[in-house]
């Protein structure tokens, strides 16, 4: 295709302008304002907010909890979403029904799905413990036991998240020319060889996007913690976002909240850059 010449060279900018304005007003401006507030804890420019934060053991607990949950949750969601996409990518009768069913969890808001899971995981009346009881297993405090609570948060977020990312992987799989698979089949390639030699390399860009977007979304995870565990038990689910929320709304400490969210921004940007470097290195 040749280059498309537009007679009205301003048209693209006009069309993009509304969204740009919205992004500036609702994303860029609050970020900049938050960074400024974090450096002005007492109305004057200083690092005191960050110094106090780095001396605070609660902050470091939140930092490690955030890293621990995300180190498990991000790969789990990406891998499961990819497997789900592989499953629903087959051409058999009725597959569209399964695509719909797999995607359904994402149609429920995170708030409602947290409420549903909170009810199901309840120690006293939850259906999960009822099922365990049938097999003679003692009721588990999924939301009140330190060994389970962080996994419960991962479960709640992933039940919905995997459905969403599956659709991106499915779109990526649909873009692969089937002739390549046919050639591989003729050459005698089996399922695993096809998967690792053809499929995964060819959806690299999709994987990259899912990884970045998933990382951003999961580092900012808030609803399941606020509704189901409130950062407990014993701070085991007290992620940075929840600590920022408490600082802003319970402690009325806006500079502290702003400092935490600024640090979160730096963490997410750093991880994104590293991911970008790793993937581009493999490409070279």
């Amino acid at each position, binding site marked *: 295709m040749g280059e498309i010449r537009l007679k009205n060279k301003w048209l693209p900018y006009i069309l993009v302008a509304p969204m740009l304005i919205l992004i500036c007003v609702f994303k860029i401006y609050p970020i900049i304002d938050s960074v400024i507030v974090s450096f002005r804890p007492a109305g004057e420019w200083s690092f005191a907010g960050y110094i*106090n934060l780095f001396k605070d053991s609660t902050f470091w607990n939140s930092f490690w909890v955030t890293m621990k949950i995300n180190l498990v949750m991000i790969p789990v969601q990406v891998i499961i979403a990819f497997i789900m996409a592989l499953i629903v990518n087959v051409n058999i009768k009725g597959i569209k029904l399964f695509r719909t069913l797999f995607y359904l969890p994402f149609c429920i808001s995170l708030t409602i799905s947290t409420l549903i899971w909170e009810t199901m995981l309840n120690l006293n009346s939850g259906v999960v413990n009822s099922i365990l009881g049938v097999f003679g297993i003692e009721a588990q405090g999924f939301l*009140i036991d330190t060994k389970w609570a962080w996994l419960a948060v991962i479960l709640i977020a992933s039940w919905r998240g995997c459905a969403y990312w599956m659709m991106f992987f499915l779109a990526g799989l649909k873009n692969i020319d089937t002739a390549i698979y046919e050639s591989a089949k003729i050459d005698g390639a089996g399922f695993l060889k096809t998967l690792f030699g053809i499929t995964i390399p060819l959806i690299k860009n999709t994987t990259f996007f899912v990884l970045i977007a998933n990382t951003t979304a999961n580092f900012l995870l808030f609803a399941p913690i606020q509704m189901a565990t409130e950062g*407990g*038990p014993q701070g085991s689910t007290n992620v940075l976002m929840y600590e920022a929320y408490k600082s802003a709304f319970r*402690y*009325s400490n806006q500079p502290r909240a702003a400092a935490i969210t600024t640090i979160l921004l730096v963490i997410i940007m750093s991880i994104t850059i590293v991911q970008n470097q790793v993937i581009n290195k493999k490409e070279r």
Partner: protein
Amino acid sequence: MKKRILSTILSAVLLISVILTGCGNKSAGEVTKENRDESSVDTIRWITMSSGEEGKETKSEKLMEEFEKETGIKVEAEYYSFSDLFDVIETKSVAKSTDYDVMLIDVTYVSKYAENGYITPLDDYFTDDEKAEFDNASYTAGVWDDQMFAASRNTSTQLLFFNQKLLDEAGMEAPTSTPEDRLTYEEVAELGRQALEKLDPDGSRGLIGFDFQQASRVYQMNMLPNSMGGKNINDDGLSLDGVINTEPWEKSMTWYQSLVNDGIASKGYSTEEVEAQFQSGNMVFMIGGTWTPSNMAVDDEVGCTYAPCFEGYEDTVATGTGSWYVGISSQSKSKENAAKFVKFLTLGSGNDLWLEMNEDVPSRNEKLQEIIDNPEADEMLKMAAYEAKNTAFPRASTPLFGEYSSILDQMWEDVRNGADVNKSIDSAIKQFDSAAAAYK
């Protein structure tokens, strides 16, 4: 040519829609503001608490109807759960929102909101005689920096409530006590255990023997260490070291943990859910406030007696106290009308109606004395008036009450869920020290 026309039309449509959206919002805002200014004489907005259709919303609606009948001023309410109310007030106040006039304030947050400029002083609206109508403790709790910022709607206290129907079913007699000869916590726990053995030996009914209406909230749970002579916070209000890592706290928290571990008190229920268990007739004994009988969801007969004490600590009985206050937003455009509503709720006929509906303990001297002097006054209110006057133990006085309650609520919940008591206490001290560092 066609493409040029199409692209021009498309661009124009997009531009017009953006402009209309902006103008539309601006117009709506202006209209709203004009309405607020024009109608502010006739309508005020109240942020208050709700506990469901049958609960506080219905009672609040009655109050608003009465106020409108008396003054012609309409009140519109926004209802929020206990947990959300604090967040909403914080969000609206920081944003300097003008869309509300009156707010319900937890007593422990009066100083914080006054310090942050969220609420306006009431000295111009209350005469000295009107201020003197409140009992001293209730009036003082609404004062910050020598100015009255909030008026007390009522005070509160704790009694031991029991489900008479369950006791009858278990073949057990209702407990009685006097201020001089109280039940001990240990005795109540034993009664709870006995009731569970008879009513729910295998746990299939999900009954609870003995629990606290506000489990894992400092408002109520702190009365346990207070009842052993423990304080709530250091005198400077900025430290917990030397206060909660003392014997009263360690002993009382260990006792409470054993109550949960023995299956007498509940585990896994949120604070709201625990109260709902008693309201639904699924709990035998509960430490609760005087609003308990009026909030029952079933017809079970509910009895009460004086709050328990710990064995060997009969002289240091302590009950949780303090309640809700009413204040005026500093951003309100209708402060005069808002003040009328505040006085209606706290001193006027509105307060009489509220006390009658919610059976709360009054914070007005006249009303307290009425109860004490009236031989035919409700027994529960008489007990409550006695406790409010004699065993009430104020909550921690600190500008960091948000941090204090958040950290200690979590500490109580961790202990309830089996965490090591001493480690939980040490963690709470550390966290509070970090929070208080900026103030020291």
